[in-house]
C-alpha cells in the first residue's frame, strides 16, 4: 500500500491522542517528585512495610492462582463439556464487578460468621483486617489473568502433539508435564506477572476487607486524604516505579524467551 495516505495519517493522529493521554500523566508523575522526598519516604517504615505487604500478598495470591488456575486452564483448553461456557463466564466475571462490591461480597462470605469464614476461623484463619483478607481480595480480581493466559498457551499446542506422546507410552500426567507444560510456560509466566501486578494494583476490594495491615495503594489514599496531594505523591512515585520496572522487565524477558515455531 502507499506508505502515506490520508486515512492512515488521520488514524495515526487519532490514535496518538490516546497514547499521549496515558503516557503524559505517567511521565509527569515520575518526574514530579524531588529525590529528597522520595528518599525520606523510602526510609519511612510505614511506607516500606505497606509496600512489603502489597508485594508479599500479591505473590501469595499469584501462587494460589497458579495452583488452581493452571489445571483449570488445561481442562478448558482440552475438553468440551456441558456448562463450559458457564465456567468461562465465572472466571471472567470479576473484571466487570465494581471493586467495592467485590469487597462487600467477599466480606459477607469470609467474616468469622460467613459461610466460608466460619469454618476457617475455627482453624484460626481470620480474613478481616488481616493478610489472608488482602490475599483473597487480590486473588478474586486477578486469577482470571492466570487462567486465560495459560489457557491460550495450552490452546496453541497442537493436541496431536500430545496424542503422539501418548502413543509413545506417556500417560496423561506425564504428557502434561513433559510436553504441554514446558510449551505453555511462556504464557503461564506472562499470566502470572499480570496476575501479580493486578493484585498489587487493587484498592477497592482490599480496603473493605482489610484497611489494616496497610497495603501501598491504601497508604497512598490515606496520605492523600489526611495530608494532601504533595504528601501522597512520593509514595505513588515509588509504587509506580516498582510496577513499571516489573512490567518492563517482563516485556524484555518475554522478547528473549526462546519461542518454538509451530510445526
Amino acid at each position: 500500500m502507499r506508505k502515506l495516505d490520508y486515512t492512515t495519517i488521520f488514524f495515526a493522529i487519532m490514535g496518538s491522542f490516546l497514547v499521549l493521554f496515558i503516557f503524559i500523566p505517567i511521565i509527569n508523575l515520575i518526574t514530579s517528585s524531588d529525590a529528597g522526598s522520595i528518599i525520606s519516604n523510602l526510609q519511612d517504615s510505614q511506607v516500606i512495610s505497606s509496600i512489603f505487604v502489597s508485594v508479599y500478598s500479591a505473590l501469595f495470591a499469584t501462587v494460589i492462582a497458579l495452583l488452581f488456575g493452571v489445571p483449570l486452564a488445561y481442562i478448558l483448553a482440552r475438553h468440551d463439556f456441558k456448562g463450559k461456557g458457564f465456567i468461562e463466564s465465572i472466571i471472567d466475571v470479576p473484571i466487570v464487578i465494581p471493586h467495592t462490591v467485590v469487597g462487600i461480597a467477599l466480606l459477607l462470605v469470609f467474616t468469622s460468621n460467613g459461610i466460608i469464614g466460619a469454618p476457617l476461623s475455627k482453624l484460626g484463619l481470620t480474613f478481616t483486617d488481616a493478610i489472608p483478607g488482602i490475599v483473597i481480595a487480590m486473588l478474586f480480581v486477578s486469577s482470571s489473568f492466570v487462567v486465560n493466559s495459560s489457557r491460550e498457551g495450552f490452546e496453541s499446542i497442537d493436541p496431536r502433539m500430545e496424542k503422539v506422546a501418548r502413543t509413545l507410552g506417556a500417560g496423561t500426567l506425564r504428557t502434561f508435564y513433559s510436553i504441554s507444560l514446558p510449551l505453555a510456560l511462556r504464557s503461564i509466566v506472562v499470566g502470572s506477572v499480570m496476575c501479580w501486578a493486578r493484585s498489587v494494583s487493587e484498592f477497592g476490594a482490599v480496603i473493605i476487607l482489610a484497611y489494616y495491615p496497610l497495603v501501598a495503594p491504601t497508604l497512598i489514599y490515606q496520605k492523600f486524604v489526611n495530608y494532601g496531594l504533595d504528601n501522597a505523591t512520593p509514595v505513588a512515585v515509588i509504587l509506580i516505579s516498582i510496577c513499571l520496572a516489573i512490567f518492563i522487565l517482563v516485556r524484555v524477558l518475554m522478547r528473549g524467551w526462546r519461542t518454538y515455531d509451530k510445526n
Partner: protein
Amino acid sequence: MIKIENLSKDWKKFKIDNISLEINDNEYFVFLGPSGSGKTMLLELIAGMWSPDSGKVYMNNTNVTYLPPEKRGVGFVYQNYMLFPHKTVFENIAFGLTLRKKEKQQIKIEVEELMNLFGISELSDRLPRTLSGGEQQRTALARALIIHPKVLLMDEPLSALDRKTREELIQEFRRIHKKFDITIIQVTHNFDEALQLADRIAILKKGKISQVGTTDEIFRHPKDKFVADFVGSENIINGIAKEGIDGLTIVDTGNIKIESSQKKIGDVHLTIRPEDITLSNENIVTSARNVFKGYIKEIYDLGTIIKLTVDVGEQLILVLTRKSFSDLELNIGKEIYIYFKATAVNLF
C-alpha cells in the same frame, strides 16, 4: 492382525459409521478418501485416541477398544510431523525409550542406529524448527519406530512435502515396511500415493467404506461412481445393458453400443481407463471388440503425456506419450479410429 467391528463415532463434523474391516499382519493398508471422509478419525480410533460410540477394535485377537494409546504399542506419524519443538532431534527420537526407563547408553545406541538408517545423524542436536519438511518427517518416523511398534499408523505423511521429497519418502516407507516386519496403515487423499504403496486400499466416503480391495481391483473395477471419480476414471458413461453374443454384454449409450465382458442388465454406468484405449489413423484389424470412428476434439499437453478428447458419438478421453502423439501427426479435427477390448469395459 487388526480387526475392526461395527465401529461408530460421531463427533462434531466428523463421523465413522459402522465400519468393519480386517487388516492382515505386515500388510501395507491405505485408507483413501476426500477430506471430511473421517479417515483421520478412523486412524486415531485405531490408535486409541478416542473412545468409539460403539463397536470394537481387536489387535492380535485382543479387544483393545478401551485401552489407552500408551498401552497399545502403535507408532503414529502425522502430516505436520508433530515433533516436540522444545526437544532436539535426538531427544525427540529418544522420547519413547526414556519413558521406558532404558539405560542412557542403550538409548544412545538405539537412537543413533535409527538416525543412521534415516540419514539424519548429523541433525542430532538441532531443534525441529530448523529442519526441512523431509528431515522432520524422517525424525517423526524414527521417533515412532524406536519403540518397535507392531503397527505404524500414518496420517497423510506426505501431503506437506514437495514432490521430490515425497518421492524419496515413498522409497523410505517401502524400505521400512520390508525391514521392520510391521503392519502399516496409512491415510491419504492422493490416489497416486496409494497406488504406489498399498497392498490393499479402502475407499472411505462420509464415514463409510465404499470399496476395499487390492490397488488393481479398485483401479480397474471401481464399484460405484464415487470411487470411479475418485480414482480418476475419466470415461464414465451411462447406458442400458443387454445380453449380447459370445456371453458379452452390450451397453447402449444412446449414441454408440459398447461391448463388455462383465455381466449386467439394465441401467448401468461404464468406465474405460484412458490408457486402455488405442488410437490409429487407419481401421486395422485387432482383437479388440470395440472399434469406433471419430475425430479429435481437444488436446491437452500434460508435459510427459498428452491427453486427447475424442468424439465417437460419446466423448472419450485417452492418453498417449508425447512421442506417439507426434508419430501419429495428430491435430484437432483429425479423423481417427479408436479400439478397446471388451475386458477393458467396467460396468457398475
